[in-house]
């Protein structure tokens, strides 16, 4: 990684950085234009989502939309119980004054000067603009978590992700251990079989897996999401490749010390295989948190929805409440952003070396 070893450079050399010693090649210009455009295209949609999620329903309906979430300022005026909305008013002489609106009748508004509340002015509504400031509509986040089932969805997603990752790590590491530490007849056949199951994604066997899950009485329970995907060929493969690099002497030494095979597995091999286990754990968390089609099929009651299914159900309703959807989308996004912020490098090396997603 050159970026880590390079010494700091001035902005001038950064802008002038290029391959070779010759004059600026067209590809250098292209590179920076492309990166700038990429930055915009990749990030702007997410930024827009986050900004929009803080707007009130009225703010969301504005066209053209404002960039920042805005709310109209209201002021306390002597003699009025309720706070009054503040407007910029273009007066007849062309000057602009800030006035508070008492009430509106047709196309005329009764307004007062907050500093001088005694005098009421009649202003045509066309000549006033609301005075606004940035205001975050936190209720977009609070309401769905309190009033709707979103807390439940969030909790279900956490349970599914955690339980499924635990089961995945356990059974796949056991299988990898069996396939890497022992020499036995049929080992290669089993390995081939495991890799062969790569060819059968869930999309090909939706109906019969649904039947199996129904037979086990797991429809509309979280187990129906946790169990079917627990054994993953990529997981076994990844862990096995890593365990093969563990020196045999360690295992022989443990056997000399009368350790049982199970103790060798979890006291010797598993700690040594932790980097690979961590990679699989991160992948499993991402897979499960983001899983959609299978939960959509087996979870049909709102109490067992995961976040993804819940979000989809919410956005499919006739009267789409975008202010809630946007906020909940941001909530769904947060764990992934956290994982990414801390483990970015780790994830990308994992993918680049194993070619799996």
């Amino acid at each position, binding site marked *: *990684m*050159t*970026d880590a070893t390079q010494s700091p450079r001035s902005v001038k050399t950064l802008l002038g*950085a290029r*391959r070779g010693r010759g004059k600026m090649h067209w*590809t250098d210009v292209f*590179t920076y234009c*492309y*990166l700038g455009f*990429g930055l915009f295209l990749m990030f702007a*949609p*997410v930024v*827009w989502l986050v900004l929009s999620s803080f707007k009130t329903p009225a703010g969301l309906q504005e*066209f*053209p*939309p404002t960039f920042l979430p805005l709310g109209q300022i209201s002021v306390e005026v002597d003699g009025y119980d309720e706070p009054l909305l503040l407007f910029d008013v273009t007066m007849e002489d062309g000057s602009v004054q800030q006035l508070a609106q008492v009430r509106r009748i047709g196309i005329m508004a009764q307004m007062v000067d907050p500093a001088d509340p005694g005098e009421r002015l009649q202003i045509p509504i066309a000549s006033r603009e609301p005075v606004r400031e940035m205001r975050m509509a936190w209720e977009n986040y609070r309401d769905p978590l309190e009033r709707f089932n979103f807390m439940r969805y969030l909790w279900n997603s956490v349970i599914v992700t955690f339980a499924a990752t635990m089961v995945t*790590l356990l*059974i*796949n590491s056991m299988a990898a251990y*069996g*396939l890497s530490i022992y020499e036995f007849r049929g080992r290669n056949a*089993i390995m081939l079989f495991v890799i062969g*199951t*790569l*060819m*059968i*994604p869930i*999309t*090909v*066997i*939706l109906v*019969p*897996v649904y*039947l199996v899950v129904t037979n086990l009485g797991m429809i509309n329970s979280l187990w129906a999401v946790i*169990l*079917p995907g627990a*054994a993953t060929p990529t997981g076994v493969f990844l862990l096995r490749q890593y365990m093969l690099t563990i020196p045999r002497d360690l295992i022989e030494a443990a056997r000399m010390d009368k350790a*049982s*095979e*199970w*103790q060798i597995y979890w006291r010797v091999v598993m700690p040594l295989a932790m*980097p690979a286990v*961590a990679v699989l754990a*991160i992948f499993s968390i991402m897979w499960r948190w983001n899983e*959609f089609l299978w939960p959509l099929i087996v979870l049909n009651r709102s109490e067992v929805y995961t976040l993804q299914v819940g*979000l989809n159900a919410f956005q499919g309703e006739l009267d789409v409440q975008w202010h809630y959807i*946007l906020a909940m989308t941001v909530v769904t*996004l947060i764990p*992934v952003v956290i*994982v*990414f912020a801390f483990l*970015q*490098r*780790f*994830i990308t*090396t*994992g993918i*680049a*070396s194993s*070619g799996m997603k």
Partner: protein
Amino acid sequence: MAHADDKATGIGDLLQNVVAWPIRILFKLIDYPVTAIQNVIGIRRMPWLFLLPNLAFFGMFVIIPLFMNFAYSLTGGTELFISERPYTGGEQYGFLFDCDNYADPLSCREDRFWKGIFNTAVFIFFQVSFMVLFSLITALVLNREIRGRGFWRAVFFFPVLLSPVVVALIWKWILLRDGILNAFLVSIGLDRILFFVSPEWAMFWAVFVSIWAHMGFYTLILLAGLQAIQPDLYEAAEMDGTSKERVFFRITLPLLWPNMLVVIVLALIKGVQVFDEVYVLTGGGPGTATQFIVQYIYNTAFTNQVQNFGLASAASMVLGVVLFVLTLTQLAATRRRDND
């Protein structure tokens, strides 16, 4: 891989300390019975015991379903339990493939299936070709001497981790009638476009959004391939005064080709199974304009008034055959790359 990375050990420690304690209790609980079994069956049979849970899961959720899928496709009716379903032989397949003219989906009895296949074919053609193209360009750009490469790589990679539902909702919000893209179009003097009402635009955005979401993954593979090319090849070319264009077509592209092949086939495998993002983004619409083969299977088996499991299974078998061929190609391509 991970052991080369300093961060890896940090993560390993974290995982051991925070997440691993329930595992430890679990392991202790399992220790006694497993050791007892070991004393009975002996060490030589122990690997099978370790393999058992995994193979049981594979058997129950992959292998048995695979055969049952075939059995389902030979039955009719609407019952879920296969013993209650009447045997119909190849009728479902006959129904699926009953077409006057295979080039025209509307001439088929099951026109939704063929529409799904045609849509998927169109989608794959554009999605795979443009995704490979842009992944290649991005990887080439990231492979140059740029400042902060890690940051730029992250910029292009992060959508890969977003859930399909989140990706779809982000873009749906942008593309709505009163969305920001239409606001932009109006501000530069154009008319609004109802993106989800026009079949062509819906397909365009289905392709676009799916490229946006997945491009980073393929970029990463190609970038790894580019970084594996020997630098002295470039140095030699520079000493000979070879033009950059020639270097690209004579050195970079040929040496990257095995990786390109892997990327193309992987993208094809994923593309055939496209569902999540597009389903949330367009719902398959307008009409059936963006309804793909997986959505056809899903609708036929689970959401239509009459749950036609037999027909869905038959369509799954067709999809399965396509994926089987593609996966064999992928394994061959990967092997070729790793042998080179």
